[in-house]
């Protein structure tokens, strides 16, 4: 028996197929993962992401602490409510986790980290925070529901109370705001517009049911994975790990190199890798032959070392198989992938594959 979110019984009642996900019993789909995927691209779907870990950092030194803790520069957050995507690195420049940080008050920042890495993340953050006198407070009483898709905002807004509705209607992408016990952010993990809503756990089932009544499709974590893969968004544990640098995980853009004097954890190691020039790069692959790309398959590049698929699956939007892969730096426009004992032809593309319902790669 795994851990259960406040929506567990609701999922059961609504016909979800539940599977273990990092120790949690979570819905993988409610019937068809592919239909749910299409609904998020075309209309609106919702995900229970209450298993994710919400951590508040409270104290007058919260900002200096985050300047040190995070690879991206928290000083990019000057407007209240603004969010930042970042890696949290170890001294060797490996990725402990990726996370979103929200700037709420000068003495209050909120982090959302992965559930699979909760324990090690909290240990690491608490260990680093003591020198700054910052309190690390997990908000485990909060449920989290992500509503995503082109019609997500229209379907959510009427269900919010007055204060949250006004705030949410005015939110710019990648901002969040708290009113009462609710925190509404215009963020997500699908490549579509929408909200991620944190709310008291005892209100989660009622809100979920109201969303369903309002035409929002319950979705499982199955399609969340194909949606984020199409959107070219990394998954921790697959596309990056503690032993791998963000520079070869497609995350160079998240490293706040400037100002030079900002001393974040992992900076020295990263700078060394950057100066040496990474031997690998992180790319998207589009399978041209029939078949399905899967994690850990071997990528064969002529005249170079092998690469590896870090996330592979079927793209419901494109109707073919796609992947994220770590390949030799000299890889050109084509490669082959070893799929079940055969070498299949693939094209190298720049992720994302799909954003806001539209294919961004050319299908031939």
């Amino acid at each position: 028996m795994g851990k259960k979110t406040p929506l567990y019984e609701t999922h059961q009642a609504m016909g979800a197929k539940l599977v273990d996900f990092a120790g949690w019993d979570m819905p993988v789909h409610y019937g068809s993962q592919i239909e749910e995927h299409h609904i998020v691209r075309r209309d609106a779907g919702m995900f229970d992401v209450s298993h994710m870990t919400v951590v508040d950092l409270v104290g007058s030194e919260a900002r200096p602490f985050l300047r040190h803790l995070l690879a991206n520069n928290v000083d990019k957050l000057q407007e209240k409510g603004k969010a930042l995507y970042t890696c949290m690195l170890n001294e060797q420049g490996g990725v402990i986790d990726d996370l979103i940080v929200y700037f709420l008050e000068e003495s209050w920042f909120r982090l959302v980290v992965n559930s699979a890495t909760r324990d090690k993340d909290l240990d690491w953050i608490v260990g680093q925070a003591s020198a700054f006198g910052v309190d690390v407070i997990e908000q485990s009483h909060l449920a989290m529901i992500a509503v995503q898709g082109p019609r997500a905002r229209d379907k959510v807004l009427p269900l919010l109370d007055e204060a949250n509705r006004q705030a949410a209607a005015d939110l710019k992408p990648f901002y969040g705001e708290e009113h009462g016990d609710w925190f509404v952010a215009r963020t997500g993990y699908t490549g579509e517009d929408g909200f991620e809503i944190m709310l008291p756990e005892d209100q989660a089932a009622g809100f979920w049911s109201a969303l369903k009544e309002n035409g929002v499709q319950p979705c499982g974590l199955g399609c969340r994975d194909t949606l984020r893969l199409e959107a070219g968004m990394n998954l921790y544990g697959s596309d990056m790990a503690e032993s791998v640098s963000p520079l070869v995980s497609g995350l160079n853009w998240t490293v706040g190199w400037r100002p030079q004097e900002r001393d974040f954890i992992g900076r020295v190691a990263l700078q060394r890798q950057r100066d040496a020039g990474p031997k690998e790069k992180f790319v998207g692959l589009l399978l041209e032959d029939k078949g399905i790309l899967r994690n850990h398959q071997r990528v064969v590049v002529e005249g170079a070392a092998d690469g590896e698929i870090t996330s592979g699956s079927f793209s419901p939007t494109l109707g073919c198989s796609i992947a994220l892969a770590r390949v030799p730096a000299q890889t050109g426009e084509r490669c082959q992938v070893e799929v079940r004992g055969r070498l299949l032809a693939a094209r190298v593309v720049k992720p994302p594959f799909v954003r806001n319902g539209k294919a961004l790669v050319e299908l031939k």
Partner: protein
Amino acid sequence: MSETPGDLRYSRNHEWARANDDGSITIGITDHAQDQLGDLVYVEVPEPGREVEAEEACAVVESVKAASDMYAPIAGTVIEANEALADKPEVVNQDAYGEGWLIRLKPSSSDALSGLMDADAYREFVESE
């Protein structure tokens, strides 16, 4: 609850087998198997003429989540494969015992199906798994 038609025979690898009037055997994966796999997105079937042993991997069914081999429940020669699944793999989800069949075999022995489970035994087997 998944369907388990009474006129079919079943394997421990979740294939079904149907005896046709002409002596051939049609084979597919069970409703329980397709339900466990989820939405299928790719099916690869063998060429007609291929000889297969019992328990030999002879087709591949891939869902969004994972790839699975289909094992021949009995030995025989492939006389027909369901090529239509290449473009419409979801038919296996929709109609596992009908349009979603995978291959038709000419069995090596005439009592080939006797080693397989009947519907009741298969239902019990699924519940015990």
